């Protein structure tokens, strides 16, 4: 189905520096109906492979060599085109494709060829869902377009119907098909991306971290959907993921990448059971299960068997002589919905005669009460779209609540005065769910990190730069990255930059919205270790939004569960995992196992 030979992808020197070779000499094959897992640490080139297959990198800055063949049958005499730098777009040659019926060389292929392949025979789920959806068009329309592009005969209504049906299959209600992406939660956007990729029943699906923002239940639902498609249409799937659980449950074979090179490739079962390479072994070892010792230092690739255990707060709640750091009472956030003409039926129901414009508001958060003590870590879990990010944004002061009260350190934080606002901005930091969107595309990382340091620390310019470098190293990046721009990073790297930024002013409360969702297990462990260390050293409190129950269990003192904008449960970690109160929580837990 897909045959990649000797693939090398090099990014041109950003502003004169060394060219970055993101993938070098990679070869693999993918048979119809097969699912290949692509794992590896963040920044190892996984997304780059996916984009290269469809020829979507900027041809002016990217050099792709090697051969990528897409076809329905076995390759004949598959001698790859001798590796030579070829521009992806604009080159006229069509390497050997004519000879092979249904087989196409994609490296250096003509734009028209690629166009037919993209979205039709091969579809791609992009990693960053927010920035990858057009902010100007409704999601339904974006899906319908995908269908019509590859079914020229189809009418608008037909495309629309299919789009809505597909959205429902990934769990997005038909009524919201007309909404624009910025009105959706992170997980919902990700599901939109998936739905879009599945519109045309592609033969090859490249799914780049498709489920990072999804809670276990929805994740399972989506993966089931993938599997179903694969059965029906024999779709081959290249699944990029760092979640070894997902890889184990979904893929037939797994390929481990590190630094753009293949480390190991084997059937998934074998690989996970008996990894050959030390790196793989470490990676597998780093995977977190629901049986870890909470608060213990996690194994990473560099340090596969740590011993240390971080001090946790132990009992959740207030110690004497303390007051709550954050008190949230009856918080509500309603978004005005799209106005539409009320249907005759609704009107009749309400006894109205004239057609009226009605806006059904979205109750994103509806009466949430929450407390966080100093130094305490509260996990916020719940299904996608249940209002976690919205709650987090309110606490960070970015969203005006429609009702309720937020107190910080005893003071009313919904209407902070100057003094309090200053304090809040230093002591409360937010890690955004969408890392790329939260980075200014026109500022280097150095400058992005410099802002909080300049605002909240007395350091001089040179010291700040040093500190920024230090922060980057703490999250597993290097000082070399300082002068790069956000678009030059991988998804996980961006997420780590977001974390580094939040750590910069040494806050008392970090509101972290899915901070490790895009990180491979090893880096995730590294970041969690860092956070736990900080917590121990500096007594930082966390509101930790995550759908990954294993992480929550390991990291949090107390867990709050949200469902449809309401807080359905808020208990001690151990109690929750041992004996969940509500059906909903039980369901969540069940899905995770």
């Amino acid at each position, binding site marked *: 189905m897909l045959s990649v030979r000797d693939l090398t992808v090099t990014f041109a020197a950003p502003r004169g520096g060394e060219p970055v070779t993101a993938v070098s000499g990679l070869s693999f094959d993918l048979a119809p109906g097969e699912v290949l897992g692509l794992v590896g640490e963040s920044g190892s080139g996984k997304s780059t492979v996916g984009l290269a297959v469809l020829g979507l990198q900027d041809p002016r800055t990217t050099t792709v060599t090697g051969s990528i063949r897409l076809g329905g049958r076995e390759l004949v005499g598959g001698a790859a085109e001798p590796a030579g730098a070829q521009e992806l777009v604009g080159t006229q040659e069509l390497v050997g494709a004519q000879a092979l019926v249904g087989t196409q060389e994609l490296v250096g292929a003509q*734009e028209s060829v690629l*166009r037919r392949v993209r979205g039709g025979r091969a579809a791609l789920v992009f990693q960053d869902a927010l920035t990858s*959806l057009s*902010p100007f068009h409704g999601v339904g329309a974006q899906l319908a377009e995908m269908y019509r*592009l590859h079914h020229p005969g189809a009418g608008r209504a037909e495309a629309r119907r299919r789009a809505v049906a597909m959205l429902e299959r990934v769990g997005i209600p038909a009524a919201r098909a007309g909404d624009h992406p*910025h009105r959706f939660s992170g997980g919902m956007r990700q599901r939109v991306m998936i739905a879009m990729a599945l519109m045309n029943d592609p033969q090859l699906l490249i799914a780049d971290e498709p489920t990072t923002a999804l809670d276990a239940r929805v994740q399972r639902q989506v993966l089931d959907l993938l599997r179903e498609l694969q059965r029906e249409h024999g779709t081959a799937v290249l699944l990029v993921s760092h979640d070894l659980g997902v890889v184990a449950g979904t893929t037939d074979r797994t390929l481990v990448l590190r630094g753009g090179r293949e480390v190991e490739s084997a059937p998934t079962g074998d690989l996970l059971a008996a990894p050959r390479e030390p790196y793989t072994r470490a990676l597998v070892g780093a995977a977190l299960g629901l049986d870890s010792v909470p608060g213990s230092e996690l194994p990473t690739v560099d340090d596969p068997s740590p011993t240390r255990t971080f001090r946790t707060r132990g009992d959740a709640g207030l110690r004497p002589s303390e007051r709550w750091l954050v008190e949230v009472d009856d918080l509500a956030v309603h978004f005005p919905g799209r106005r539409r003409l009320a249907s005759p039926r609704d009107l009749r129901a309400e006894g109205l005669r004239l057609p009226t414009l009605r806006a059904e508001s979205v109750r994103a958060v509806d009466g949430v009460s929450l407390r966080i003590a100093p130094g305490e870590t509260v996990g916020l879990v719940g299904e996608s779209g249940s209002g976690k990010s919205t709650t987090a944004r309110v606490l960070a002061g970015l969203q005006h609540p429609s009702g309720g009260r937020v107190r910080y350190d005893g003071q009313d934080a919904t209407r902070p005065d100057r003094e309090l606002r200053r304090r809040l901005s230093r002591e409360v930091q937010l890690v955004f769910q969408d890392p790329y969107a939260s980075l200014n595309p026109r500022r280097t990382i150095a400058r992005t990190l410099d802002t909080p340091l300049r605002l909240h620390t007395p350091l001089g310019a040179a010291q700040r730069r040093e500190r920024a470098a230090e922060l980057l190293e703490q999250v597993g990046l290097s000082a070399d990255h300082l002068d790069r721009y956000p678009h030059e990073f991988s998804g996980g790297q961006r997420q780590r930059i977001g974390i580094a930024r939040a750590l910069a002013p040494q806050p008392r409360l970090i509101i972290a919205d899915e901070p490790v969702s895009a990180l491979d297990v090893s880096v995730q462990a590294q970041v969690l270790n860092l956070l736990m260390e900080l917590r121990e050293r500096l007594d930082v409190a966390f509101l930790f939004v995550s759908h990954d129950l294993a992480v929550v269990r390991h990291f949090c003192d107390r867990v709050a569960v949200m469902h449809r904008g309401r807080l359905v449960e808020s208990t001690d970690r151990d109690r929750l995992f041992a004996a969940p109160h509500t059906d909903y929580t039980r369901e969540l837990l069940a899905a995770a196992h």
Partner: protein
Amino acid sequence: MLSFALRRALQALAVLAAVSAAAFALFYAAPADPARAACGPRCDSGQVAAVRQSMGLDQPLLAQYADYLGGILAGRDIGDVDGSVIHCDAPCLGYSYRLHQPVTEALTDHLPVTLSLTAGALAVLLVLGPGTGFLAALRHGRRTDRLLSGFTLVGASVQIYFLGYVAQWALVYSTGLLPLPGYTPPAEDPAAWAGGMLLPWLVLGFVNSAVFARLSRSQLLETMNEEYVRTARGKGLGRLRAHLKYTARGAAGPLVQLLGLEAGALLGGAVITETVFGLNGVGRFAAEAVEGQDLPAVVGAVLLAACFVVLFVALADLAVAWLDPRVRLS
């Protein structure tokens, strides 16, 4: 959206009131004496005073302004130079002593010319401006890009009276390639209308297109690198279509804003174009009114122009909000 429109309408009224007040004050405070102009060079000061009185210019400025506003809302009676009284109907912008005509009527006489001119010029401008800008952005850095940019830049660096004059000379008077510039009502003879306006359209559109070409080029280049454009291409959209549908939409905000401005300004400020091509539109009317110190006509023309600017700027605001759903109307 509805409340936005309402608020915009209120704001527009306030703007118009402010503009009319400013126009009134400025033009009435200028050193040239309209009564003297109306009277002629041989008048002695006594005669001028008599004229001034009959034109109502001896009243305090505020009283004159109040009368004026009242006239717009409810119509009013105006004393003519000979002491007789003329009634001027509701949107009364005063009475032109120079033309012996209510200003409103005079303006409506000239408006179709200016409307035709502007509409056509805008069409040309849209093709030449964003059109070439788009092509240039697509061919970024190549020869097409440079050529197109250069072409529109020529427009930016020539002045309309020069280009208009040379173009008329070359295309109309010496070679007869194009019909004489002039205005025929489109209802009368559409072909003659288009023929007579062709050259003014082309010249006005061309001269004003450069800024659009360049702005759209840079905006497009900016937006081309957005992730969602990549997604669109990942769907199998061709480069051109992806850019048309996604990039262009993302880049359109500032352009639309500028276009609104330009449309308003073209309507209100077509003085030079109309002069160059001998079109008898509102712009020329205004210039002549200034020349003839016909204050009611000047203020009326200014107000009309202001209406257009306000209208188009508001439309542009609406369009921007419609183009980008993330923008909140406030």
